């Protein structure tokens, strides 16, 4: 798998496409394939879960969980 990083791909894609070598084009294609593989394995969702912020402290915010109000019909 290519190890091309996002910054590298930005640099690569800023080149004149008509001056790109075969290797440049292969690197761009490989980068996209790696991105696809990461998405297929749920990489982006996993990363978000890993970096999730700590749960909210409701008490500290002056909030408390209450049961929904029961509406009674006569």
């Amino acid at each position: 798998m290519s190890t091309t990083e996002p910054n590298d791909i930005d640099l690569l894609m800023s080149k004149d496409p008509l001056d790109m070598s075969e290797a440049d084009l292969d690197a761009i294609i490989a980068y996209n394939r790696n991105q696809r593989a990461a998405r297929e394995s749920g990489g982006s969702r996993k990363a978000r879960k890993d970096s999730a912020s700590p749960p909210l402290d409701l008490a500290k915010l002056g909030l408390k969980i209450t049961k929904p109000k029961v509406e009674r019909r006569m």
Partner: protein
Amino acid sequence: MDELDKVLSPFLPNTEIRFAWDSTTLGALKTCPRMYKYLYIDGWQPKGESIHLRFGIEYHKALEEYDHFKLSGDDHETALRNVVRQLLDRLRDWDPDTTSRAGQYKNPRTLLSLVIDYCDKFADDPAPTIVREDGRPATELSFRFELDWGPQTQPEYQHEGHIPEWSSGPQPYVLCGHLDRVVSYNDERFVMDRKTTTTTPGSYYMDQWSPNNQMSLYTIAGQIVMNTAIRGVIIDAAQVLLEKPNNFVRGFTYRTQAQSAEWLNDLKFWLHSAENYATVGYWPQNDTACNNYGGCRFRGVCSRDPSVRERFLEADFVKLPPDQVWNPLIPR
């Protein structure tokens, strides 16, 4: 304008009576005659390039090139390299606003990703392109054929020698357009039409293609162009996704001979209405279509008092010169 320009006009000379129709113009007429007039007679276009339009054009172009590279003998990787190079070259001037929802989903990066994903997925396509009798592949087929009837108002131009070169008498209606591919699948033949979408191409998405003006026309056109039975259209949908892999779904929409005949019969009534609107110079609003698909582009104009609509058109739209208004007679 020279004589060639006159010949290429889709209208009868000095009238708003259109004789050349494609699925775009016909679809607009059926949706709302007023919208049709604004777009395709007056030439009003929303200011700024449509992100969706540019994305769709470039996607089609890239896949068309991939087909051609493959059919000319390139292997998958070589064809893909060539496609990526040419795509990046064409996209140099495209800088959509990626803070908008449309631009977030449809921009050069997502387009490149979509094209590479599609080519990888369908490198060995189970629905191969048909090769025509003359040996050419059935891709990017522009079609144009005459109907056996025409506008009932046939003005004096017939006596002035301005008859289009492909016609020998009173101007008949002409149906024209463009087919992406004609393919073979399970021993049957289909037109394949590529679509890009940001919504899920599930059953709700696929249901919209039957009945559907464009797909009925493409089925008929496919039969005429290929001179063979066409079962319908395969919708080759590509869903652009940001966090999940792009999603490719193919759906089938079938047409029987009787359904095609019905569509052509209905067409007589539609074109007769269009001729009538053009003759009296009035294109009515269809006020039941204003909110379809997130809202008509002209809703903000049509909702105003008629006396001020022109001002709102001038503020939010650009009026194209007549030679730049969409003309289905100009082949791609």
